[in-house]
């Protein structure tokens, strides 16, 4: 029987790819293991190998075809002893290429940088105390609400780029400016990054400043901290933050505490960065959100951006910051596109949230990939007449309490959204701060939407159940609105 050769999925998140080149032609004999073709995705070029023996009867998708959906038949193989021309004619009509990639789910893309910052009643001006004095010794460090819109001057030209490119550009720009900045980690140089975030850096800056390490997280994290003690500014990439658990002792005991223990003599200006949280179908040991973990530790700053422009502006700030910064990226967001300001030196301040979307009925607070649920939920709620205000925390520590509190004083209701575990999560912290600072303004208890309280399962159906959903956010928002 003729065998269809299908467009393979070669990475957990691949949906389509380009058929770059056929290495075999019609009529060629192939055996298992022979490389038939090369395909390209945004991450890499990969080879399609034959699994069965036979003759390549017909090529259905020709060289250079873009957006070939996974599982599309790309060729027909005639099996042993089979009539090649019959097999070729049995081929289905070549499938049309998949429609143009859906734009990344960033509902408010156009609004990015355009929406007006809200002016909550009664808290403007310097003479007004925006929040009540904390009842307990409090963690509030900033007292002014921040105008995130002012980060990008009006009329600035915007260019569309992916989060991946924005991160790369941020590193490259800072490396051009400061010879003390260098990158190290597993596969960051010759391989161009396991997730291609450091693409091109080796070529521009050479192996002295773009350093491939062995698989020795605890060791190279310590090496980075030691180098930072002397004033170098390492960017340490963890292939994923799951592997930073090998190194967490150096991050917390050495990087976070030395400034304090040395009475301010020496600290560690270092950035630890890499993808954090669940990717897709990689199961418990590779799918964990560490936002809450690091945010528990004094002596660290913790950043978890959602959009490409925040990723770029915040990473540049993190590299310049004199403190250890944990920079939590997200694999699913890497390939998503956003408008990014075209400025010579665009930075975003650490510790400032951004109101992504204004609303008066309920406040939804989230960060990183959580924003995708929050924004979609806000759109759904709008249809039902509920105006949600969506706050992107951007920095988890120090947390911008003022922006949250000001919003809750306006809406009286709050839902938090994150992929991490519920207990002692970021949402729990937000709820506590709202109780401390805006208890009298609350019309309903704060509800947390989180990942479920279980290790991440592998099975597709269970994985879906373990993650938060837009429906859960909508439901929570309606619940706090008593609807």
């Amino acid at each position: 029987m003729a065998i269809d050769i299908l467009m393979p999925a070669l990475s957990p998140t691949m949906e389509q790819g380009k058929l770059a080149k056929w290495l075999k032609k019609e009529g060629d004999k192939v055996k298992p293991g022979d490389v038939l073709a090369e395909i390209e995705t945004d991450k890499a070029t990969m080879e399609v190998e034959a699994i069965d023996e036979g003759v390549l009867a017909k090529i259905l998708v020709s060289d250079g075809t873009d957006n070939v959906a996974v599982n599309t038949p790309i060729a027909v193989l005639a099996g042993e002893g089979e009539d090649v021309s019959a097999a070729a004619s049995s081929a289905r009509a070549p499938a049309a290429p998949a429609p143009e990639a859906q734009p990344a789910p960033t509902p408010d893309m156009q609004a990015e940088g355009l929406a007006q910052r809200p002016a909550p009643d009664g808290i403007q001006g310097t003479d007004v105390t925006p929040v009540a004095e904390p009842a307990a010794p409090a963690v509030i460090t900033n007292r002014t609400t921040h105008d995130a819109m002012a980060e990008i001057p009006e009329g600035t030209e915007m260019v569309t780029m992916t989060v991946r490119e924005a991160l790369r550009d941020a590193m490259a720009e800072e490396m051009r400016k400061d010879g003390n900045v260098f990158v190290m980690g597993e596969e960051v140089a010759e391989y161009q990054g396991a997730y291609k975030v450091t693409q091109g850096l080796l070529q521009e800056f050479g192996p002295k400043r773009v350093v491939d390490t062995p698989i020795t997280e605890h060791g190279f994290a310590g090496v980075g901290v030691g180098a930072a003690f002397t004033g170098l500014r390492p960017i340490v990439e963890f292939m994923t933050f799951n592997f930073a658990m090998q190194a967490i002792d150096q991050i917390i005991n050495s990087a976070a505490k030395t400034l304090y223990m040395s009475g301010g003599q020496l600290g560690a200006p270092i950035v630890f960065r890499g993808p954090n949280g669940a990717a897709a179908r990689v199961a418990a040991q590779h799918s964990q959100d560490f936002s809450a973990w690091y945010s528990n530790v004094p002596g660290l700053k913790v950043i978890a951006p959602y959009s490409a422009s925040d990723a770029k502006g915040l990473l540049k700030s993190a590299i310049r910051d004199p403190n250890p910064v944990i920079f939590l990226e997200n694999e699913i967001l890497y390939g998503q596109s956003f408008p990014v300001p075209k400025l010579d030196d665009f930075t975003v301040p650490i510790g400032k949230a951004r109101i992504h979307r204004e609303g008066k009925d309920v406040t939804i607070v989230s960060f990183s990939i959580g924003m995708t649920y929050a924004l979609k939920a806000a759109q759904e709620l709008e249809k039902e007449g509920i105006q949600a205000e969506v706050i992107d925390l951007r920095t988890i520590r120090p947390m911008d309490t003022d922006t949250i509190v000001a919003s809750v004083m306006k809406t009286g209701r709050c839902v938090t959204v994150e992929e991490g575990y519920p207990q002692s999560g970021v949402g729990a912290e937000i709820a506590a701060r709202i109780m401390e600072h805006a208890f009298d303004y609350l019309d309903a208890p704060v509800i947390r939407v989180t990942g479920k309280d279980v290790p991440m399962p592998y099975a597709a159906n269970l994985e879906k159940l373990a993650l938060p959903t837009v429906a859960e956010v909508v439901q929570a928002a309606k619940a706090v609105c008593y609807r």
Partner: protein
Amino acid sequence: MAVAARKAGRAGSGAANKSTSTKGQVRKAAPNTPQFDKDQDLSAYNDMLLIRRFEEKSGQMYGMGLIGGFCHLYIGQEAVVVGMQMATREGDQVITGYRDHGHMLACGMDPKGVMAELTGRRGGLSKGKGGSMHMFSKEKHFYGGHGIVGAQVSLGTGLAFANHYRENGNVSLTYFGDGAANQGQVYESFNMAALWKLPVVYIIENNRYAMGTAVTRASAQTDFSKRGVSFGIPGEQVDGMDVRAVYAAAQRAIEHARTGKGPYILEMQTYRYRGHSMSDPAKYRTKDEVARMREEHDPIEQVRRRLLEGWKLSEDELKAIDSRVREIVNEAAEFATHDPEPDPSELYTDILL
């Protein structure tokens, strides 16, 4: 099941080299490769072929979207685990990293259960909750299946600690890669294992690359058999593409560990034909290099030739073995495709006892 790996009652008949190993010394593999009798060749052929065909099928099912996430194939390295298992006895434990399908099959775990775990179904060995990298079988003494590079080395040392504690005479076979060999906890484990004379054999599967990093770019000492020298752990470099050499070395190492002399290191010089995982840009090595290894050193082809030329089996007899193996693999794939996903209630089970 005719061709699934069998564990017991196979050790001992091979003409292994009985050279002694001096403490802390590193020797090259014996120059004259020990011979296999016909049964041994047949059994090794069956077991390796099962792994090869199983992995080819896994790759295919991944391409069809039935398997998700990371999926690391063992193709090319089959002789290592098969040769090692030939020298074990019931009760010996096996632990490895994420490139674990071959180890599980060689331990006699059900191909259906392995494949159904790859597809995330309820009949999988971890009920669909672990996936390719995380599978276990207490019954077959297989302790995983670990996704964190290097973690299994301390864990495997702990299995040996338990054997020592219980004085049960069992040996822990602890597998890890050339990349994993650079993790700090490996040396912490080596020290404890040597200090307490724990019955563990460390099998370093040196397939020359850790993802896209060639051994020479990551390791100051690329002779992995010497990695235990400062702890007085003996080590050997072994031709990991020749199942006979693996078996002979396994016998020496396991004997050493079982008789209370402490840990032993085997550097298996092997090669992975496929990419690191399913997504691999394959830019770090040449196509020629891969083709040469496949053509000149294939572990299965070596045995196949012996069966045909040495033991005078006919092509038909080999074809019959091949189709039996394919049948098992197809059955497993069939099961893994149609078995239902886990019940949603499974989300909250197995978290605490």
